[in-house]
């Protein structure tokens, strides 16, 4: 239900793009097209219909993931999106894994060793990480690893392998190499966020009675940290990380621009420049879809992590 509401809101938003942003005709035709031809194109595109009819048509089409043709590329948007989606998803998933893996590990470490030198260094460096804009980090990485050291590629996805409709860069050495810099750039911000979140959770949980009680029972530190504390800290981490992975998709716009990563964010930013509205609205709807999907996964994870949601009956013994 909620998802449908979210999707409708976003659909309305993306539709209003059509009616507010620029004049698409101008971006479709050359500099020497006559006024009559423009009017004709308006008519064929249905841009002269009343707004509610346009919106109705938009929703019906969007439900079938039909966003018409890109003004600029003259190709069906759904096809363009399908072509670009694997690149973005691979980038986002790789970044999420980096962010979650390192984030949780370093978060637990710094949460346990609150005053350690290494903890402070980790916190300090990660804070410096979020204080740098993503685009600066990206360009810095390119300069260091591609231009100076020459060890990693500065742009693109490397060799890709086509598996059905999905083109993957994960199966070739050059593809994997090309993934390193963009995914690292994209993950840094979330990583810092997760480090901080996990650290705060761990610190809070280590003060709770059940941890003290576990200590009093002689349970080993290792088991307390990773068995008890980490598991409990995962509940808020899952929520926040879920939301953040959604935003990773959006933030990939910058990363993809800097690294010429042929994903949807890159498609989108170019669409913005050319006011290519079908692509813009399709992208928005896609983002919302990702969010809804992630929310769904988060709910399931909740269910798995927190038994209080799983078992309905409380106090069976009254």
């Amino acid at each position, binding site marked *: 239900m909620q998802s449908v509401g979210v999707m409708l809101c976003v659909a309305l938003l993306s539709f209003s793009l059509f009616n507010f942003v620029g004049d698409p005709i101008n971006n479709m035709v050359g500099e020497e097209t006559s006024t009559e031809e423009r009017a004709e194109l308006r008519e064929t595109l249905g841009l002269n219909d009343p707004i509610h009819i346009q919106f109705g048509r938009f929703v019906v089409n969007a439900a079938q993931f039909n966003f018409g043709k890109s003004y600029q590329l003259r190709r069906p948007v759904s096809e363009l999106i399908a072509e670009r989606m694997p690149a973005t998803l691979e980038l986002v998933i790789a970044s999420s894994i980096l962010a979650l893996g390192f984030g949780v590990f370093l978060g637990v470490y710094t949460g346990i060793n609150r005053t350690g030198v290494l903890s402070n260094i980790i916190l300090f460096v990660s804070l410096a990480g979020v204080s740098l804009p993503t685009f600066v980090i990206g360009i810095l990485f390119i300069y260091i690893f591609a231009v100076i050291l020459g060890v990693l590629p500065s742009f693109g996805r490397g060799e890709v392998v086509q598996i059905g409709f999905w083109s993957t860069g994960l199966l070739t050495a050059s593809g994997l190499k090309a993934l390193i810099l963009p995914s690292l750039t994209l993950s840094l911000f979330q990583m810092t966020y997760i480090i901080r979140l996990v650290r705060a959770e761990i610190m809070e949980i280590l003060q709770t009675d*059940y941890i003290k009680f576990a200590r009093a029972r002689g349970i080993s530190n290792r088991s307390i940290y990773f*068995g008890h504390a980490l598991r409990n800290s995962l509940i808020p981490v899952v929520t926040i990380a879920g939301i953040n992975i959604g935003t990773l998709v959006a933030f990939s716009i910058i990363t993809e621009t800097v690294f010429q990563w042929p994903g949807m964010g890159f498609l989108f930013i170019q669409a913005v420049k050319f006011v290519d509205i079908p692509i813009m609205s399709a992208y928005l709807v896609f983002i919302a879809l990702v969010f809804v999907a992630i929310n769904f996964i988060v709910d399931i994870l*909740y269910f798995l992590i927190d038994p209080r949601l799983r078992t309905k009956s409380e106090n069976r013994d009254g």
Partner: protein
Amino acid sequence: MDFLEITNLNISYPTRRLLVAAVQDVSFSVRKGEILGLVGESGSGKSTIGRAILGLLDEPGKIEGGTIQLENHDLADPATEISSFRGKRIGLIFQDPQTSLNPVMTIGEQLIETIQTHLQLDANEARKRAVALLDDVGIINADARFNDYPHQFSGGMRQRVVIALALCADPDILIADEPTTALDVSIQSQILALLQKLKADRNLAVILITHDMAVISEVADRVVVLKDGRIVEMGAPAAVLGTPSQTYTKSLVSSVPPTDRRIDRFPIMGAEQNHAADHNLKILNRWQLQKNTGASLVRVEALSKSFSSEGFMRIGTNEPVHAVRNVSFEIREGESFGLVGESGSGKSTIAKMIVRLIEPTSGAIFFEQDDITTLDGPALLAFRRKIQMVFQDPYSSLNGRMKIKNIIAEPILHHNARLERADIDHYVDDLLAAVDLPASSKERYPHEFSGGQRQRISIARALATQPKLLVCDEPTSALDVSIQAQILNLLKDLQEKLGLTILFISHDLPVVRQMCDRIAVLKDGAVCEIAAAEQLFASPEHSYSQHLLNSMPKFQP
């Protein structure tokens, strides 16, 4: 030599301003097969000692000196590998079973983990042992409940699980830190019985840490009385509590509400002798005293309240919870009416409906002939003025961001918009004086006051509108017993001087006996019995009333 011997123990908490000596020069010992009661008010250091034995002092606490000798190990010696004693030789249980268990692990997992930490057992054997333990502590159908999560158990059952966890590796000593404070009186008696049984069956040494004199007098074999980190008195309960030799112990004992009779006032030891309120009840000048006719002030008729459990995540079981079922009673002008019951009995819900914080599902509440459930606008404001409330938790009942004078002045201003600033200032002074607080208090913030003082401020605020009815919802249950005595005295004085009617809500039967003229006993939202106080305590009619009175720990020095 006794099993565990503590000699000259000193513990301190260095803070930035000063070094707080939490425990000073404490020496005592425990034998196997005895329950040693550590009793004292908050800040006496009793819990600190318990934790120090296991080396689990909160930061930045530190053992400064002394020894904790267990057989030939000194647990106070930093060189001792104290973690090897935790759970293995010494078990520790905490006050609140709600928070002592990891909510995301089944009790079985927690038990097996603990057992396997200490004993070389495979999963099967560990499980067998765990089930046996659960049986021992009185979990019914232990095998079937093995994979349940903590939230699926009730409070009492949870505390049994906690005890089972503490006993996993057959420790020789069990330290129980306020093990029954969070529990209802009937469950309290079961847990205390369990502790006594375990002590006997396993030849355990038990250190029972509590603030409750009655509990100590019922179950302890020996008692150590602590005050401000020092031992005041030590010995058999009958001797220490019956014929105390120290002033502190005497005052402590005299503050305990007796269970067997009603007394006029609590005798307060020390400098601030009684009737402090006598000479400075200046608020009387403003008070419009009315004769109490003994007529009905509040009449509750067939009152019911149910909460529908709505939650975003919760699916299924949408049965409404019936918190109050068809309750009727009346409160007469000038009397103290008591509502007694265990947690979940609906007593607070009734109070909230009477002050109109929540609306009843059905039924009516009449206050001076008006059905308050239908009031609104100016009539509601006029009603609000006549009925005020004192809350249970002194820490949450005052807005921490406001100065005391603003807290007290707020109701005055709200009901008398035209009063002048200077006049309000005086009024606030008078109100503070009425609750025995110095006028200088008004420039300070709540966090600068102790719990008892905050309850006084709460009372002053409640009096600011010159109410007829004062609803007191467990006003002393969060306070130490000596402070409780003072607050109860104050309430009695104010009632008498100001002609207040009081609705007094409590789970604490001895307190109710001291405070109330008539009492209604509640169970599961329904009234079991309404009777005059003395009559109820002398000859309860309803079986539940009888059960409650029997479970009540008797303080018999």
